[in-house]
């Protein structure tokens, strides 16, 4: 195979691999393609309160199962003085706080961060009992209520076709204050909630049903009581109903805490126990959300990447990952434009320094050091030194100049110039040395051309490297480097003219 074909195949493979990984990270892991994407993260806090009497205390709170469209990013428990553990029984997680003795009002906290993702909220089929326990309605004083319930169920059954419509009919009737039967039932069950009554009625109608406890996620809500939904078995699958509207489906923004099962909170050794919730929403950068959710799942691509490094090293890598972009700019400018620079990749190092110092400070410091350094170098050249000592002398001079610039500018109140230390000193010294040779051999004009070319490339590289999108992509999708590598390989095969050659050879055409 010819080298050229190999280059194209290799470049295509690299590009495909890079693009594939990028798409995977975007689609499946939720890394945002564009910078500045935010996701809403809900922080839910459950507060368990009760009064203890000095006896041993044990409080058990049912923890939310992982709802399919709610990703739990983080959870924390706080309970001073209490022993704590999480136990799992029958598919249910419960947080258990315990203490040998406690007196007075007690507060226990459980906090979790969740993020809503698209998708169906509940898993089907659920392994829940579909048995129906018929309520006892045989007592004498229950005669009227029994009649009312049967009439309600019969009417609803007449007006419906299946379990789903029947449930809707029942819930509508139970929500209608003009309905005589309904008023009679609620009159009898004064202290029962709508969902309690609905469960009773559904049991009479021989429909398996249970309660779903949860919360509506709305920003800045405090001391919320859990809200209930109804879940009904239609013979094949479970359908959720919002009891007040009677409409099927889990309402949007509903966070399911407990599905079926037992009580939400059990307290032994305490009185007046109660659990309340508060909800706040935060807008968090999309990347952090992805990082949190993937770190829980130990996603290999994320776990074995630079994200697993400490934050400080990550910020260094943020800069290092920009270097290939700078190199690409140099390649483009040299291959397609034909700019002359002093030192092939010296402009990239300059550009990195500019990122730290800001452009104009960086430019002026560079020009200042170059001029002063050249001046010193011309004197040194008269001293008959060996090359290594001379360059070392220039390095020392550059360091002294940097120190002087920092001190003088600090005294003058120009804080920006303190960033001078970001300049690569050895590179500067070599640049000065090369420039002075160019000056001696080819004259000052060539120095201006080469220094100007280097600066132009450095500024362009700086401009690209500080681009918002480029920064975002290189750091969040380092696999794009493979695409970049492929691109550089392809450019390395370009045999066409350079822009500068269109100028250089113009006489040949006339």
């Amino acid at each position, binding site marked *: 195979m010819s080298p050229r074909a190999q280059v194209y195949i290799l470049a295509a493979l690299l590009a495909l691999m890079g693009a594939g990984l990028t798409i995977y990270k975007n689609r499946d892991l939720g890394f945002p393609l564009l910078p500045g994407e935010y996701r809403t993260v809900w922080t839910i806090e459950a507060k368990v309160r009760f009064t203890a009497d000095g006896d041993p205390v044990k409080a058990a709170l049912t923890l939310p199962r992982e709802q399919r469209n709610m990703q739990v990013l983080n959870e924390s428990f706080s309970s001073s003085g209490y022993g704590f553990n999480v136990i799992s029984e029958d598919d249910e997680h419960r947080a258990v706080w315990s203490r040998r003795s406690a007196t007075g009002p007690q507060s226990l906290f459980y906090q979790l961060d969740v993020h809503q993702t698209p998708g169906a909220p509940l898993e089907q089929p659920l392994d829940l009992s579909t048995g129906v326990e018929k309520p006892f309605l045989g007592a004498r004083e229950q005669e009227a209520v029994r009649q009312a319930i049967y009439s309600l169920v019969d009417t609803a059954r007449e007006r419906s076709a299946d379990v789903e419509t029947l449930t809707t009919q029942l819930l509508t009737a139970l929500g209608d204050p003009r309905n005589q039967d309904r008023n009679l039932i609620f009159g009898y069950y004064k202290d029962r909630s709508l969902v309690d009554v609905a469960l009773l009625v559904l049991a009479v109608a021989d429909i398996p049903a249970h309660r779903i406890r949860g919360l509506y996620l709305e920003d800045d809500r405090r001391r919320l009581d859990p809200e209930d939904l109804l879940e009904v078995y239609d013979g094949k699958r479970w359908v959720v109903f919002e009891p007040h509207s009677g409409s099927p489906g889990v309402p949007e923004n509903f966070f399911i805490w407990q599905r079926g099962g037992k009580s939400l909170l059990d307290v032994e050794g305490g009185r007046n126990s109660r659990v309340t919730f508060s909800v706040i929403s935060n807008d968090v950068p999309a990347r952090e959300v992805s990082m949190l959710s993937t770190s829980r799942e130990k996603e290999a691509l994320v776990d074995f990447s630079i994200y697993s490094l400490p934050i400080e090293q990550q910020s260094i890598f943020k800069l290092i990952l920009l270097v290939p972009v700078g190199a690409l700019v140099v390649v483009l400018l040299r291959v397609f434009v034909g700019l002359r620079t002093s030192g092939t990749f010296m402009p990239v190092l300059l550009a990195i320094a500019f990122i730290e110092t800001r452009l104009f400070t960086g430019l002026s410091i560079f020009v200042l050091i170059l001029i002063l350094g050249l001046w010193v170098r011309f004197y040194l050249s008269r001293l008959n030194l060996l090359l290594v000592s001379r360059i070392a002398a220039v390095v020392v001079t550059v360091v002294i100049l940097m120190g002087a610039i920092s001190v003088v500018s600090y005294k003058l109140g120009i804080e920006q110039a303190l960033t001078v230390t970001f300049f690569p000193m050895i590179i500067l010294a070599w640049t000065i040395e090369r420039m002075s040779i160019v000056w001696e*051999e*080819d004259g000052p004009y060539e120095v201006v051309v080469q220094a100007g070319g280097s600066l132009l490339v450095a500024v362009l590289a700086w401009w690209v490297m500080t681009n918002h999108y480029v920064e975002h992509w290189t750091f969040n999708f380092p696999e794009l480097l493979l695409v970049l590598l492929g691109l550089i390989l392809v450019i390395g095969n370009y*045999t066409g003219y350079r822009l500068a050659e*269109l100028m250089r050879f113009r006489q*040949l055409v006339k």
Partner: protein
Amino acid sequence: MGAFSLPQFLAKLRGGLVSPMALHRMGVLGMNARNINYIARYNDRDKYPIVDDKLSTKRAAKRSGIPTPELIAAFETQPSRSQVLKVIEPLWQFVVKPARGSGGKGILVVVGRDGDKYRKPSGAEVTAQDILRHVSNITSGLYSLGGKPDRVMVEALVDFDPVFDNYSFEGVPDIRVIVFRGFPVMAMLRCSTHDSDGKANLHQGAVGVGIDLATGRSCHAVQRGLRINRHPDTEMPFGKLQVPGWRDLVRLAASCYEMTGLGYLGCDIVLDRRRGPLLLEANARPGLAIQVANGVGLAGRLQHIERFDLEQLEKNVEERVSYSMRQFAASRTLR
């Protein structure tokens, strides 16, 4: 404001740029194409040291019987002061150059002496101290690629053939011949000018004179991209220029192919009054300015040779020279 005309606007927008299509039609070879299609393809990396190090070039030339300027001394490492002085003391004219200098950098030419002062071609004087420093600079690698430590060569100054005296100002006129797979394909004479400060670099203002391969006469002359007919300093018309012993010179260039084994090669040749053409140096990455000097693109000639079959490529030096002189004759000369 006149009526808006798109072609005119585009022409203005383009400035001095010509279209790449036009260059392609002219067979102009670009830098990228040269690097990939010729240098990378025909020049084996392991043969570079022969041309990159002028001492090796000299040695190889001696083996192949190619004449070069006389080597007086070579310093492998940093020489002591007395060593250098011992070498230059008896000399009146000499050249100090780095073995691995690139682009003619670091070459010090001494054309005469005035007691302790050494005279450069420009008339400027340097002391023995300056020469010692220059030697020290060379050995530390100031002029070599990548700053590697280098060796110093002291060569005899070429006794230039006076035929070019009036075509060069203060400098060394040399002839560059591009040899492709052993076939000389193009030649030019580089004349330094006052403008170029005695240097033979075209982009510094030296005059590039295209030389007709068939006859050794000038066919085209260019300074700073503009066509000229006379040398800007000496006013000598280039039309009268005729390189003496042209066939010998072309033969010398062609035999560099066997000497170096490089497929795409630039040979720099000077004419000595007594010895005739001498190989100054060979270059594995010859520049493209020769196209401007000749007013002709290289690509067509190179492609012509690329189409050769094996039998044609196995011709000997004499046959190749005859072929090239016949095939690549200029369409017209400056006469």
